[in-house]
C-alpha cells in the first residue's frame, strides 16, 4: 500500500506527459464548428452584385456546395482565390460566396481584379449572418450537403493539397 503512494506521482506524470504528446499533434488556435451536421442557419442576404443573385437558406439545398466566407481586406483570401477560380472553371463543385463585413464597392472591385468564382454571393456588411454561421475570421469554407446540412468547416485559406485531402473525399461521398 505505501509503495503505491510513492509510485503515484510517477503514474500521474506519465498520464500528463501522454496528454502533452497528443496535444502537440493538435492545433490549439482552430475552433471546431458547433454546427457540424446541423442545418444551415436561417438567413437571407441581399446580393453583392446586381448581376448575381443573393443568398438565402433555401438556396443551399438540393446540391453539394461549398460556401466560402471572404472579404476584400483579407490577405489570406487572396492566397486561396486561385484555387476557387480553378474549382469553378473545372466545375468540380459549385462555390457560393458570403462577403463578410465588407463594403460593397470594395468587394466588387476585389472580385473584378481577381475574378469571380461564385455562383451566388450574399452581402453581409454587419457580420450578423456570419455570427449565425459561427464565423470568427476569414477565410472560412463550409461544405453543405443536399439536405442543407453543414458537414464540414475549414478555417483558413484553402490550398490544392488541403482541398484534395479534406474536401474531395467528402464531396464524393455526399454525392452518392
Amino acid at each position, binding site marked *: 500500500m*505505501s*509503495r503505491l503512494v*510513492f*509510485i503515484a*506521482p*510517477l503514474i500521474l*506524470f*506519465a498520464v*500528463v*506527459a501522454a*496528454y*502533452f*504528446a*497528443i*496535444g*502537440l*499533434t*493538435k492545433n*490549439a*488556435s482552430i*475552433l*471546431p464548428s458547433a454546427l457540424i451536421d446541423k442545418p444551415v442557419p436561417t438567413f437571407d442576404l441581399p446580393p453583392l452584385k446586381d448581376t448575381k443573385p443573393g443568398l438565402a437558406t433555401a438556396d443551399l439545398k438540393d446540391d453539394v456546395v461549398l460556401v466560402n466566407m471572404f472579404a476584400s481586406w483579407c490577405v489570406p483570401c487572396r492566397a486561396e482565390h486561385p484555387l476557387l477560380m480553378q474549382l469553378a472553371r473545372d466545375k468540380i463543385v459549385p462555390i457560393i460566396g458570403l462577403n463578410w463585413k465588407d463594403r460593397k464597392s470594395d468587394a466588387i472591385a476585389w472580385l473584378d481584379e481577381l475574378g469571380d468564382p461564385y455562383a451566388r454571393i450574399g452581402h453581409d456588411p454587419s457580420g450578423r449572418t456570419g455570427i449565425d454561421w459561427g464565423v470568427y475570421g476569414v477565410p472560412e469554407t463550409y461544405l453543405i450537403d443536399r439536405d442543407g446540412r453543414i458537414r464540414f468547416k475549414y478555417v483558413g485559406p484553402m490550398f490544392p493539397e488541403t482541398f484534395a485531402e479534406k474536401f474531395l473525399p467528402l464531396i464524393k461521398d455526399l454525392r452518392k
Partner: protein
Amino acid sequence: MIAEIGHFSLILALAVALVQAVLPMVGAARNNAAWMATAAPTALVQLACIATAFGCLMTAFVTSDFTVANVMQNSNSLQPMIYKVSATWGNHEGSMVLWVLILAVFGAMVAAFGRNLPPSLKARVLSVQSMTGVGFLLFILLTSNPFERVIPAPLDGRDLNPLLQDPGLAFHPPMLYVGYVGFSMAFSFAIAALIEGKVDAAWARWVRPWTLVAWSFLTAGIGLGAWWAYYELGWGGWWYWDPVENASFMPWLVGTALLHSSIIVEKRDALKTWTILLAILTFSLSLIGTFLVRSGVLTSVHAFATDPERGVFILLLLVVAIGGSLVLYAWRAPLLKGGGLFAPISREGALVLNNLLLTTAAATVFIGTLYPLFLEAFDGGKVSVGPPFFNATFVPLMIPLVLALGVGPMLGWKRGDLAGAIARLKFAFVFTLVVTIVAAYLSWGRSIFGVLGLTLAGWLAGCVLTEFGARIGLFRMEIRDVLRRMTGLPRGAWGMTIAHLGFAITVAGASGASLWQDEVIENLRAGETLSIVGYDFTLRNVDTVQGPNYTAQRGVFTVRRDGVVITTLAPERRRYIVTGTETTEAALYSQWHADLYAVIGQGGGQDGGKESWTVRLYFKPLVPWLWAGTLLMVFGGFVSLSDRRLRIGAPTARRAAHPVSPTVQPAE
C-alpha cells in the same frame, strides 16, 4: 565574428556540462575524491562559457548586427538602447540562453560558496544541475540557435514587439527566471539526497538559502509581470489566469509549500519524503511551464512563436528529467527514515495544513489550465477555462489558508495548545473587527466580498503583529528589554514576520483591486470635464507627439478634487512605425490608498463640429497595496536569507548528534 564566438561558447559549454554531469557522479559512487573535486571547477567554467555566449548575443543586439537572424527579428535601429539590451531575452532563443545562464549561475554559486557541503553531496548536486544544463544546451543548439546568420543582411530589423518595449517588462524575465530556474537547485539537492539515501537537518539547512533565493525572485518576477499588465495593457487588470501566468504561479505555490515544509525537516527531522517530493515537483512545474509556453499546446497572449518540433524536444526533456526523478523517488524515497512525532494540533500540524492547502491550490490551477488540453485529446470538445472557474475554485482555498496562517505561528512545536493560542490572539480579534467595520463603512455599496477579503487580511495582520509582539515581550517586559529582544531576533524570524505581513497586505490589495473599482467611459472634447468618485478630469488638449520609434496621440488631463489641482495625467495612444502596431499607454496617479487611471482611446469622432475622443477613467482602490505587499514578501525573503545561521551552514556532525531541544535552538 562575435556571433560565431557565442555559438562556439555554447558548444564548449555543452562539452563541459557533459563532463560535469558524469565525472562527479561516478566519482561520488566510487568515492573517488579527485573525480568528485571536478564538480566545482567545471561548474565555474560552464558559467564562463555561457556568460560569454550571452554577452556575445547582447553585443550583437547592442551593435544592431542585423546579420544575426535573432537580432533582425527582434530589434531595429530606431529602438531605444535599453530595449535593444532587453531584446536579448525578449524572444524565444535569447530567453533560452538566459535560462541556461541562470542554471549555470546557481551551479557556480554552489561551487563557490558550498564550502561546508560534504564532497559527495556537492559532487552529486552539481552533477544533477549540469544534467539539466546538458538537456537545455542541446535544445538550444539543435532547435533554437540564437546565433544563426541571415545572408544577405537586411538594412534594418523588424523591431521588438511594442508591448515588450517597456521598462517593467524588460526586467520581468530575468527576475522570473532566477526564480523559475533557481528551483533547479532545490531539485538537484533533492535528487542528490535520494541517491545518497539520506535526508537530515543538515540537508534542509543547506537547501534553504537556494530555495529562499528562488522563491524571493519568483515572487518579484510574478509581481513585476502583474504590475506591467496593470499599467500597460490598458484596462487595469493585473491577473488574468492566463496559462502562462499560471505556469509561473504553480511553481510559486508549490515552492512556498517547499519553503515551509523544509523547516519541519530541519527542526523536527520529519516529513522528509514529502519535502523531497515537493522539491522535485516545484522544478517539474517550472519545466512544464517552459513546455506550455513554447510548444503551442495552449493559446495564450504570452506564448512565444510556437513550433511543434521544439515542443517535442522539450517534452522529451520533461520525460527524462521529471520521469527520471520520479522513478528515483519511487525507488529510493521509502528508504528515508522518518523522524520526529508531532500531534495534529501543533506548529508542525499547522505547517502540514499549509502544505495541504497550497498543493491543493496548485493542483486546482493545474487542472484548470490543462483541462482544455485533456478534453481535446479525448476529442471531448473544446472548452474555455477562464477567470470565472479559477475565482470559484482557487479563492475558497485561500480562506482557510489565511486563517491558519494567523494561528500557526502561535502554536508550540510537537504539541500545541489551540485554545491557548486563540486566547493569546485577543488583539488580533479586536484588530480584525476594527478593520472589518472600517472597510464596510468606506466601501458601502460595493461588493461585500471585498469586505470579506479585508477581514481576512486584517486577521492575518493582527495575528502576525501579535506573534511578533509576544516574541519580543511587548507589554510584558521593560522597553529596554523589548528593544534588546527585537535587535537580537534571528533574521529568520524577522523575515517570516515581514513576509507574512506582506502577504496580508497583498490579500487586502487583491480584494480591493478586483472587487471595488469604479469605471467611467465617455466621449470628450477638448475643454470638457469627466468625473469619477469626486475627482474631476478636465481634458485640456490632445497633441500629436513623436517618440523614437512611434507617433502618439497624447491627451493632457488636469485632475482636481474639490477644485484643488492634484496632478496632470497624460495618457497616450501610440502607433509604432515599423510594425504599425498600436498600444495604449495609460496614465497613473498613485496615492497610498488608491490609483487613478486614465486611458485615451480613439479619436476622430465628431461631436458638434469638434473632435472628440473616447476617454476611460478608473478609480482603483487598494491597488498600491498589491505592489507594497508583494515587495514586502520579497524583502522578507531576502531578510531571511541574510540570517547568519544559513551562511555558517549546518551544525557540524558532533553537535548534530545531540538531540534538538526547544531551549537550545531559537524557535522560528
